[in-house]
């Protein structure tokens, strides 16, 4: 990557984005996309049956959803951008250049959603005391907000689908072809009922706290939420099947490197089983709660909640993974270098073209230091020196802990690295640079070293004459 290298060595950069992104989805799906529809339904039910306890419960659940979505939910959404802008700025910057209007329309829906959620939540108590007509408007407002929340997903799933569909991305570079992406509708059909069921699962968890003093109502609420789950589960099941059937054909067609298929197949079978187990057990539990609420054990209030978190977390994690070795399919590798620039970088070496480097040439004296700079430029988006997925632990697994590592062996490994580890990009530099990085890595076996990332140590450019700069090309 040719920008100042932000790097968190102990955590691993991809992990940083991963934590924030998964947290965001785990809040956004159950509490916003599914949550508002769920709360509005409870509110409507309370109004219809003229039982104030439903309204109180709905309001309490809404308070929880409101506080969490407008703090952690909203800010982790911004956090995905912040972290992506630090970890792989070239990737996120390229995507924004292309999908600007897509994100802009998403923003307009966001603004609508936030304004509506503020009105919906803050007028709840006052509108409820102003007669049945006003209450009905409030309920309608709730369903309008639910539609807006769902619409944010409609757009973002299109953008996500587009990012995974490199063929179309490179060809027409237009936002609307996202909607023609064959995986788009199935993915939406899968995520929508899953979000609804997750909202129910979260509600189930929350009634443990909100019905503490009314055990009889708890059983009623349990039954109602279970019914909600039951209604959505056939749709979730159908959506999952549709999605599961469509992924292999569309995804494999899009995978440029055929060998990624291997990892894809593994992921695919795991996800398929997970979907099956989680949805079926969700259905079974819901059926139990509907038929025999009095026998439903307390522990099972929590299980569906955790089950869905696990399913979605896994789903998102691996969905990201199969994009590798690319950050943007067929265009940009996950190391931040464009595929197009590889022949130039391999011919001239990275060093000649990196903006931030201490020198333009490798000598026997500076080999270790330059090797480290090149490691940071080419490898540090995914690898750390001492932290999670550290390069030293990887090398220990390959070459042994006690045997001395050999520069030539590692330099040779770089040549075919992308063929044996098909999720890794090819090496983006020349032979001399392979040896310099290898020399640094071998040196690491006997020396402890720290990353010196831009956020603490700044950047440098080579000391050179002006004519030296001109001779670069």
């Amino acid at each position, binding site marked *: 990557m040719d*920008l*100042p290298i932000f790097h968190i060595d102990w955590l691993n950069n991809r992990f*940083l984005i991963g934590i924030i992104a998964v947290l965001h989805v785990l809040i956004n799906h159950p509490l916003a996309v599914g949550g508002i529809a769920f709360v509005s339904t409870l509110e409507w039910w309370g109004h219809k049956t003229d039982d104030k306890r439903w309204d109180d419960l709905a309001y309490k659940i809404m308070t929880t959803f409101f*506080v969490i979505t*407008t*703090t952690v939910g*909203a800010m982790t959404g*911004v956090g995905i*951008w*912040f972290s992506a*802008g*630090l970890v792989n*700025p070239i990737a996120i*910057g*390229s995507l*924004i*250049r292309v999908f600007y*209007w897509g994100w802009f329309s998403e*923003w307009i829906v966001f*603004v609508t959603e936030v304004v509506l*959620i*503020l009105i919906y939540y803050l007028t709840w108590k006052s509108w409820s005391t102003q007669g049945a007509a006003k209450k009905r408007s409030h309920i309608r407002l709730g369903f309008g907000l639910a539609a807006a929340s769902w619409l944010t997903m409609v757009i973002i799933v299109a953008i996500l689908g587009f990012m995974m569909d490199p063929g179309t991305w*490179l060809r027409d570079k237009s936002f609307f072809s996202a909607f023609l992406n064959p995986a788009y509708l199935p993915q939406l059909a899968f995520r929508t009922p899953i979000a609804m069921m997750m909202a129910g699962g979260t509600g189930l968890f929350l009634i443990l706290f909100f019905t503490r003093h009314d055990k009889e109502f708890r059983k009623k609420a349990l039954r109602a939420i279970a019914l909600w789950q039951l209604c959505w589960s056939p749709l979730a099941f159908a959506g999952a099947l549709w999605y599961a059937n469509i992924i292999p054909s569309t995804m494999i067609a899009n995978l*440029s490197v055929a*060998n990624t*298929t*291997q990892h894809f197949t593994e992921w695919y079978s795991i996800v398929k089983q997970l979907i099956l187990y989680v949805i079926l057990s969700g259905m079974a539990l819901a059926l139990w709660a509907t038929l025999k609420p009095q026998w439903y054990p307390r522990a099972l209030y929590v299980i569906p909640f955790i089950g869905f978190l696990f399913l979605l977390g896994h789903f998102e994690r691996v969905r990201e993974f199969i994009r590798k070795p*690319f950050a943007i399919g*067929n*265009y940009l590798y996950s190391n931040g270098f464009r595929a*197009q*620039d*590889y*022949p*130039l970088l*391999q011919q001239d070496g990275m060093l000649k*073209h990196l*903006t*931030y480097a201490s020198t333009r040439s490798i000598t026997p004296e500076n080999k270790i230091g330059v090797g480290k700079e090149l490691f940071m430029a080419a490898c540090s988006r995914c690898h750390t020196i001492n932290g999670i997925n550290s390069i030293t632990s990887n090398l220990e697994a390959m070459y042994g802990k006690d045997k001395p590592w050999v520069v030539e*062996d590692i330099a*040779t*490994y*770089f*040549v*075919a690295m992308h*063929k*044996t*580890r*098909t999720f890794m990009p*090819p090496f983006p530099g020349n032979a001399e640079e392979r040896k310099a990085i290898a020399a640094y890595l071998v040196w690491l076996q006997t020396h402890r070293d720290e990353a010196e990332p*831009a*956020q*603490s*140590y*700044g*950047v440098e450019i080579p000391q*050179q004459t002006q004519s030296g*700069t*001109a001779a670069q*090309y």
Partner: protein
Amino acid sequence: MNTSFLMHLHSGVLAQIHATVPVPRDIPLPLPAPEWLLVTLLVVSFLLHILFVNLIVGGSILTLVYEIRGRREPRYDALAHELARTITVNKSLAVVLGVAPLLSINVLYTIYFYTANALTGTAWMMLIPMIILTFLLLYSHKYSWEKLRNQKGLHIAMIASAVALLLIIPLVFLANINLMLFPDKWLAVKGFFSSLALPNVFPRYAHFLCASLAVTGLFLVWYVGRAKFDMAARLPDFEKNALRKHFYALAFGASTAQFTIGPVVLLTLPERGVSVRMVATIVLGAAIALPALWYMWKEITSTEGNVGKHLYKVAGLFSLVVVAMATGRHLYREESLADHQEQMRQKTAAFEAASVKALQKRMIALGKQHPVVHNMTAAKARALAVNDCTTCHDPVAWNEEMQAPPMSYLAARLDLSPSAGAGGSPGETVFLQNCAACHAVDKKLVGPSLAEIAPLYANNAKGIVAWAKAPGKKRTDFPQMPAFAHLSQKELEAVALYMLQTGQK
């Protein structure tokens, strides 16, 4: 893109680049809309965002002050509570309205913005947890008002912590936006704190804090003056006109202070971006503020009952002031980066030209499957020029009129192995590109040597093929081999024979 023109262009230009200013390359993708439109969206959406940011910061500071004062004068506690209710609403709007300017700054100042972000990375990333914590503190503070009535110290500590965070957060944003403008300072910055040492940071920060108090003061004049606002029920111990005058006085004081801070901000700006039209725009903005101040003064000193009759005039004038200031700010940004942006454009174009040339060279070298190139003699293929390829391939973008995909698209489909094309026999080529990473002829690398493998599979090339498609794990002290099912049957058979031959020697 006319590449030969670019090649010609770059040589003279790069010599002008000063050796101490880093000139990175831009992302070589076009802007999604005309620049003026993106700039307008940036400036307008940023103003909306900063308005609500001002209201959170100013509102929280005032809440803290009033709540402390409320310990002696209970009516100020009620006022603080009223104010606290508005902050959490404003904060949600501030966040969501911040997304559009974030998008626009990403697309307009891509490399500048990301460079500043990375150089202050720890603080920049900490913004997310800091803002989440601030918001949670604000909610806890608001919703625990009655519950913690007898633990006022704890309750005040909550809002005090939120205020402390709210004083740090804008400083991080400001340091970034500031650092972005000065590529000549990038080499000097070592982390967030050193970015604060750049000129202009603290004067701008003071300017922002004063603006927050002024905006909040005016907002509150409106808020308590609304017909719907039931003074008697919510703030029974205040008189409406007196309270509105109090907020006016706050806004007036803060706005007057800007006349001292503003010139300091202007004078501490590095000279490079200062232009006549930028200073004129700022001065015009300051001039529009004068009648607003005069109206405010009239309201504060008015002896009539209806305080607030000039509010919309004041708000309208201040909106104009803010638009003028934001425009001046943008003119400065444009002016100060103009030279550097031009250098970056040229460097990007030169690199693009070199990249396409190298790509073409590689494609010709690998052109065995190419319908035209594979019929040529090697010498003729080598002699192909960029222009020969560009009759069918666009160098970069998809073009419906071209017969073939662009070279950039084909790049990822090329063999990008650093040593592609090496190897004497087909089997050796496959071996070098796939297996040599872990297997050597006569020593253990990651996996066993060929000398060790060959006797095990003597006359059994098929066994090697089967193993390579779905490797198991036989040796406990070796890592598991990945599968090579993606290689064709022909390639696998060739490499198996090569391995047996080489290992037996």
